[in-house]
């Protein structure tokens, strides 16, 4: 078994799935010859040729729209949006067609499309390069939304996404593309979509997070080691559909719930999770369900970004408060 970064795990998975299925094609802005601005797709065009792995004009709408046509004609396109902040011109196609074509055609046209896009802040980037827009996809019926937080999960989830017959938005936490390595099996394996992962078992507080925020959450838990707080940590992994069952089971045990996400507060995924906790575990709650999120502001440029960042310190404070609430 090789150890590799999250980025490398995605790259390896793309190779594996393209070798396995001739109907898989991959394309996006600079995704072909250069291998993408982050090199996630490096080497693919060389192995699979310019017809299956290709560069596109700067046309997010046409990238998404063409994927719909390809899927209708039997291909399984993997598309790349260079940064999630640039997805808006393509959002029309995603929301008005990709998510609906199967329903609209009453099952005739399946849409086995993966839309990959790096997301999230903390990388000292230009405007529109740091957003966390998961809510905008999770709110659309017909889409699935995945955000991995480890190299191992990235491979298993991406494999499932590529083999899924529904459109899957695959948001990649670019801040941790190369942050750490993990052992990743060389053979194919799948992690089912819609299943959260209990990363650490505990009895006092349930903490849910995903993507790059998992790193901060784990740091926070580590910082609390001497505080005698037993945290159950859940990596949501699939944002849509949400694995309500795993969360409710945990909250019934702990009675305390915290969700931490990068995205802005209002109508964020945190709001949805808290609703579900209220619906499913209300009589088990010992403290009010809590969220830590970005503020409802535009992501600041790098010099001011620290004001928006949800970090381990903030998460640790909240966990402590929740655990001690009586």
């Amino acid at each position, binding site marked *: 078994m090789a150890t590799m970064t999250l980025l490398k795990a995605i790259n390896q998975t793309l190779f594996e799935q393209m070798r396995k299925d001739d109907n898989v094609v991959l394309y996006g802005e600079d995704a072909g010859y250069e291998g993408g601005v982050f090199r996630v797709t490096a080497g693919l065009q060389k192995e699979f040729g310019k017809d299956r792995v290709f560069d596109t004009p700067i046309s997010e709408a046409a990238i998404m*729209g063409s994927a719909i046509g390809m899927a209708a004609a039997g291909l399984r396109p993997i598309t790349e949006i260079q940064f999630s902040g640039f997805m808006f011109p393509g959002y029309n196609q995603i929301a008005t067609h990709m998510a609906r074509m199967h329903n609209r055609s009453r099952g005739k046209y399946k849409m086995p499309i993966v839309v990959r896009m790096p997301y999230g802040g903390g990388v000292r980037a230009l405007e529109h390069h740091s957003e966390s827009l998961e809510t905008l996809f999770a709110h659309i019926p017909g889409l699935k939304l995945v955000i991995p937080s480890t190299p191992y999960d990235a491979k298993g989830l991406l494999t499932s996404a590529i083999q899924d017959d529904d459109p899957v938005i695959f948001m990649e936490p670019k801040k941790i593309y190369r942050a750490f390595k993990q052992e990743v099996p060389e053979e194919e394996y799948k992690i089912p979509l819609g299943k959260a992962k209990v990363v650490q078992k505990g009895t006092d507080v349930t903490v849910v997070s995903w993507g790059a925020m998992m790193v901060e959450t784990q740091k926070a838990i580590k910082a609390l080691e001497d505080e005698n707080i037993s945290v159950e940590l859940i990596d949501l992994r699939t944002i849509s559909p949400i694995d309500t069952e795993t969360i409710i089971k945990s909250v019934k045990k702990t009675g305390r719930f915290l969700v931490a996400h990068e995205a802005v507060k209002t109508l964020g995924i945190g709001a949805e999770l808290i609703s579900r906790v209220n619906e499913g575990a209300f009589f088990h709650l010992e403290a009010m369900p809590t969220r830590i999120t970005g503020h409802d502001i535009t992501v600041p440029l790098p010099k001011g970004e620290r004001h928006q960042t949800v970090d381990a310190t903030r998460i640790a404070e909240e966990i402590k408060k929740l655990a001690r609430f009586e």
Partner: protein
Amino acid sequence: MILDAYDSLKGEMFGVLDPDGKVVNKDYEPKIDDDTLLKMYKTMVLARIADTKALQYQRQGRMLTFAPVMGQEGAQVGPLAASKQKDWLVQAFREMAALLYKGAPLKQLYLYWYGNEMGSRFDDLNILPVNVPIGSQISHAAGIAYASKLKKRDESVIAFIGDGGTAHGEFHEGLNFAAVYDLPVVTIIQNNQYAISTPRSMASKAKTLAQKAVGYGIPGVQVDGNDPLAMYAATKEALKRAKEGKGPTLIEAVTYRLGPHTTSDDPSIYRSEEEVKEWQAKDPITRFRKYLSNRKLWNKDKEEALQEEYKKFVADTFKEVEKMPLPTADEVFDYTYANMTEELKKQKEAYKKRLNESEGE
């Protein structure tokens, strides 16, 4: 070559028939067998009767909002007759004549406008469903064409859009995308002079819409869209290019929407009766009937018999649609995903339980 001979930048429009159905451009009169000519004509007549009846049904409160095609039938049957059955049809939302020509049952087309998604499922036909958001279908056509080229399938794509749609960014992205990969797509702009109330002159400053092709490095030609023979001939050439791997072609069909934008629209607000009369004189159906009569393929008796047959067929079809069961709860949930999520299964079961209880009362 029509695509070379007619310069859209100079405003040259290609046509074969005059408004009286006489061939005025002998060099380019396409050689079409009699059966195909008759199929083209009959399809136009069926579409016209289905439109007229649907307007009546709508006014009687039996039909929902729909977008009549009347006036544009020639711009649709010409291209469809020039294409192969396995070529794809990517529609906007006013393509009833094209759909009927392709073999889509009228019952299904009515069912769609009657408010039931089952009307969009064309099992054995290469047709995409009605595309409501203006302009966004061109990149779907490009994607289908990409798949066809990659898999060497010899399937081309005919995509329809309106004059209003050419103002949309999606038109540009889709056409450009098709052009840079030399994809087998024929994009047909049905310039019916209006985007709801907004005239063609507000869609673009360009003298013709066909000339937009220049910017994409592809051929473009303006065609008399009320001349089915001209539309056939131009599309035939464009499909030949597509098949030979030479890439997309843009055809502007100059036509006119004789009816309202949809049944919710009142065109008398924005256009004069004189203008409508002017275009009625150029009606593609009348013109084509005269052409067929001149060729001894059609006569008054045949016309009367056809009118009678289709009127009955259309009325019977609509009655069948009215008798069809309403979509069930299962139907509206089950197609959201190819594989329904656990979450949605729960929502569906909870809803069905409530539904059964309330219906049991």
